[in-house]
């Protein structure tokens, strides 16, 4: 009897907390828990005094400000990003997440808030000059990324038995593995690759042309059932572009000049 009451009370509590939109809870709590990858400069990294910084962190601060809250940055390495949102450890995910349909089974995506081209990153002396040279090499990546899925599909279609793939637990491990020679190439966004090479921490890395995949359109994710917060997030992304803030942040963290288009011709999002 007591057990039944307890279970019912828990169900009720859980049901109620679910019913309120994140939009309301954040405005009331004045804190926005924001998931960001901090091993992926310039989108997310730590400064010399260990403070989170980067494009995604600045974007979180903007989001929080628009809600009258402060942003609490929660580090979510690549494979933890979506589980962190599903398990309610964060309110919103601003972590260079590609909006794949499979992921859409677990979370809801806004329209793209950033677009980055994907390159082949290799190591001096690996003999890789471009995408076609990857055949027959040991290739690496991070488990659960869309670049991993693209690479695995390509490896499957090549049918070159000596090609193999190793998936690591976070971005940093994949850079170290590439630098050490455990793998000969990884696929990585151009801005991140450029920064890694410039950082001096990985002196043997070099770019070897582009990967033959469309630019990575990155989207903000919220909990799947939370339509109200999703609508607001979409409005926010639109405002960032319309107000010119998108270009300002892009110029600050990525490159000067025009910021890349966030739409694909021929289709609405």
């Amino acid at each position, binding site marked *: 009897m007591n057990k039944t009451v307890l279970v019912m009370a828990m*169900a009720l509590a*859980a*049901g109620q907390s*679910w019913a309120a939109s994140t939009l309301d809870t954040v405005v009331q709590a004045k804190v926005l828990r924001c998931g960001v990858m901090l091993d992926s400069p310039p989108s997310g990294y730590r400064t010399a005094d260990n403070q989170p910084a980067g494009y995604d962190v600045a974007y979180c601060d903007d989001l929080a400000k628009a809600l009258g809250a402060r942003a609490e940055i929660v580090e979510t390495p690549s*494979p933890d990003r*979506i*589980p962190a949102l*599903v398990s309610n450890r964060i309110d919103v995910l601003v972590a260079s997440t590609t909006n*794949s349909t*499979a*992921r859409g*089974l*677990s*979370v809801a995506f806004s329209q793209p808030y950033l677009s980055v081209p994907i390159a082949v990153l290799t190591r001096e002396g690996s003999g890789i000059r471009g995408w076609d040279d990857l055949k027959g090499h040991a290739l*690496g990546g991070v*488990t*659960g990324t869309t670049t*991993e*899925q693209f690479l695995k599909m390509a490896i499957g279609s090549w049918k070159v038995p000596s090609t193999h793939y*190793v*998936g*690591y*637990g976070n971005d940093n*491990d994949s850079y*170290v*593995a590439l630098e*050490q*020679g*455990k793998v000969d190439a990884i696929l990585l966004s151009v801005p991140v690759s450029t920064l890694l090479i410039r950082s001096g921490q990985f002196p043997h890395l070099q770019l070897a042309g582009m990967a033959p995949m469309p630019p990575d359109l990155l989207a903000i994710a919220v*909990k799947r*059932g939370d339509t109200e917060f999703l609508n607001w997030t979409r409005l926010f992304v639109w405002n960032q572009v319309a107000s010119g803030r998108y270009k300002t942040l892009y110029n600050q963290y990525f490159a000067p000049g025009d910021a890349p288009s966030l739409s694909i011709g021929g289709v609405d999002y």
Partner: protein
Amino acid sequence: MFGYTFYWSLVWDAIPELLAGAWLTVQLAALSMLLGTVFGLPLAVARRQGEGRAYRLATAWVELARNTPTLFQIYMMYFGLGALGIQISSYWAVLIALTFNNTGYLAEIFRGGLAGIARQQLAAARSLGLNQRQGYLHVVFPQLLRIVFPGYVTQAVWAMLNTSLGMLVGLQELSGAAQSAQSVSFRSFEFFLITALIYYVIAKLIEFGARAVFWRWLRT
């Protein structure tokens, strides 16, 4: 009830990969226990001497293996050796690190067991014409197995569960396979629940298998 709908069909589709991962887990656990036993027995004997070079080496091994995280040991084998230019695959890195770890724990389990066998037995064996090695192999170790059996089985379960750390260096053992299979859609709950169930079943199989072995061969 918690706003989450379980999509079990995604897991069924990935069962072959999960079972392949489970097989790798069992294989790594068995090999690292076997090798851990082979190295652990002499270490235990050396530890019992209480002095000498072998004693110091054995003590260093046991201290290092038992007082540092298994994860650290695996990382050192994979990325640590890699920094020195020695490249070994994820599989070997995990096998070597787990063997190192198991050896440390098993050596202490064996040493505890040796303490329960009167030293005079070895002297008695020597007086019957057996040399030191034969004395250990034919008189001491057979009794040892019976004494340390429960601790040994616990360690086997630990070794099996510890293989899951291989995921972090890109090994597709059970956890790695599950992580990789769930990472397309991130329907994590479904995949990790089933994976936990598989671990549980393997652990129970080890326990029941051990009980059967004990009943059949080691009962007094």
